[in-house]
């Protein structure tokens, strides 16, 4: 079974985000780039599907500038068989629908039986691309999955998502799109051998002309990023505990109107 995993390269979770000199983007100097953690769950699940079935192919796909190859190499080091990199400057700052169109075109070329991706990327948190890709392909989609099991004949998949107090189980025909929620699995670390082996694996590069997608300006246009106003300083209520608590309750009731 061929499984395609859509990944996005995002700033490390520990990054102190600052608005850049172009107010429509964050300052990228000094940022460490990683594979978005939800996409790592998707990669791990794809590898487990291949291992469980004893056969198959895992293809990691991403779009963006040259540095995105690092993220793809990290997927290859985890165990993906090969990667596709859509190197198109127009994808920088593209809206989710444009991104989805490009990725859907790659999926049509590759014709996998299953597409996995994270429930959202941890940078802009739109959570839209997985569902949009499915819509463009006319495939079923289940988001935020916590478990999946593909039928032995490879025709359907049973996947579960957590809802308040229950696990919702669905059967979907393949091909389909599944988006991964935390808890789906525990992603493996790339081993040293995996990292060394990754350099021998193929990262296929696709340019704007290779997909026949018309990237004609975003429908969603990012106007600007505004830094949040600094948090007002906290207030310390001095005095003996008995009086201080009385004052605290008064403030919460009369000023903050919280109680």
């Amino acid at each position, binding site marked *: 079974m061929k499984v395609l995993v859509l990944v996005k390269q995002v700033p490390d979770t520990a990054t102190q985000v600052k608005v850049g000199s172009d107010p429509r983007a964050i300052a990228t100097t000094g940022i460490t780039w990683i594979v978005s953690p939800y996409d790592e769950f998707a990669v791990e699940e794809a590898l487990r599907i291949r291992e469980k079935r004893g056969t198959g192919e895992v293809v990691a796909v991403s779009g963006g500038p040259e540095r995105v190859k*690092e993220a793809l*190499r*990290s997927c290859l*080091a985890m165990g993906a068989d090969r990667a596709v990199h859509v190197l198109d400057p127009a994808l920088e700052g593209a809206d989710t629908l444009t991104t989805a169109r490009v990725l859907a075109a790659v999926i049509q070329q590759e014709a996998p039986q299953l597409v996995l991706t994270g429930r959202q990327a941890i940078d802009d948190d739109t959570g839209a691309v997985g569902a949009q890709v499915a819509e463009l392909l006319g495939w079923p989609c289940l988001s935020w999955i916590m478990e999946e099991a593909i039928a032995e004949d490879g025709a359907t998949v049973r996947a579960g998502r957590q809802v308040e107090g229950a696990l919702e189980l669905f059967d979907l025909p393949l091909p389909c799109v599944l988006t991964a929620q935390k808890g789906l699995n525990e992603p493996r*670390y*790339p*081993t*040293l*051998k*995996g*990292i*060394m082996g*990754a*350099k021998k694996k193929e990262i296929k590069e696709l340019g704007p002309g290779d997909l026949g997608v018309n990237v004609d300006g975003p429908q969603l246009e990012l106007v600007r990023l505004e830094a949040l106003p600094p948090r007002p300083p906290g207030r310390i209520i001095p005095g003996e505990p008995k009086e201080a608590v009385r004052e605290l309750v008064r403030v919460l009731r009369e000023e903050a109107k919280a109680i």
Partner: protein
Amino acid sequence: MGKPSDLALALESLRRALREQVVPLLPHMDETQEFPDSVRGLLTELGLLTLVVPEAHGGLGSSLTDLCRVIEELARWDASIAVFVQAHATALRPLLLAGSPEQRRAFFGPVVEQGRLFAFALTEPHAGSDAAAIAARAEPAGDDCVLSGRKRFVTNGGIADYYLAFARTGPGRKGLTAFVVPARSPGLSVGKRENKMGLRASPTTDLFLEGVRIPAAHRIGAEGQGFALLTATLTASRPTIAAQAVGLAQGALDTAVRYAMEREQFGQPIGSFQGIRFMLAEMATAVEAARALLYRAAACHDEGVPSPALSAMAKLFASDTAMRVTTDAVQILGGYGYLKDYPVERFMRDAKVTQIFEGTNQIMRLVIAKDLLGRSRE
């Protein structure tokens, strides 16, 4: 291990795994002297035991330089996990230098496929700095060899699957020979875990060999070649001790720098005071100098001109640097540095042994002087 970018990716992956899985356990490991199976499992799974195993045998075929970079990264977090990998790599070195194709297959295979661990058994009760005074005996018995004696200070003792042991097959320096002894051999037993000042999570034990019968095919190199093999092994191994020293010094320095920026006294961060700034500047300079010397020694080895003197200089300078830098790091953290709440006191305790093991720093000076002046007449 290939291009620098591959190594950078490998170190990044290693750092992340350590931060998530090992760092939270370190205080407990230090307190209880435990080396958890989960930590061994993780380090093995990441491939750290296969670093020096040649690619032809399924290993990574790392250069000494890359081995040192990995050990340095491990030691930045904790010296006990670094020495787990370091001691194993040292014990494999004689196999790399003198193992026959059959021996390489027989012993590298289990390392790569089953995560088998090696330990290096050289020191004895009366043979420490004077390695030529080894008393353990190896006597021929048909197609076998029978080993008897006692080894001391064996790193990875009790958790290793194979011991690379030196024993006497004749008189004098020319009478030493190296053997691979499987841990499960009848007659082999392991002493109690030593209660140590530092490297507490790393097990150190005695090794008792009481009529241990092993096939003669477990002899590494020719009979009597042991001392030459030992010298070559230590020349390759001392830079890895230097890497451990540089890594732990860097770990202590990183902590001290962070603390100096956060800790406020007299209304400002202590890192704004010249007294602290100068200390940190000197510590950083010393660490960089030690690192430069260590990678020069490793590079000479990788270029096929290993230098016992350079390796000894790297080990001497890096370990003395580690002792001084970790002591200064404790000083910068003041009372907090003396508590186990911060890792610097552990780095300071761990630093001490780097001045002692794989040849004391006094022996390092002898090696260097011998290279400069020839053998002493004493």
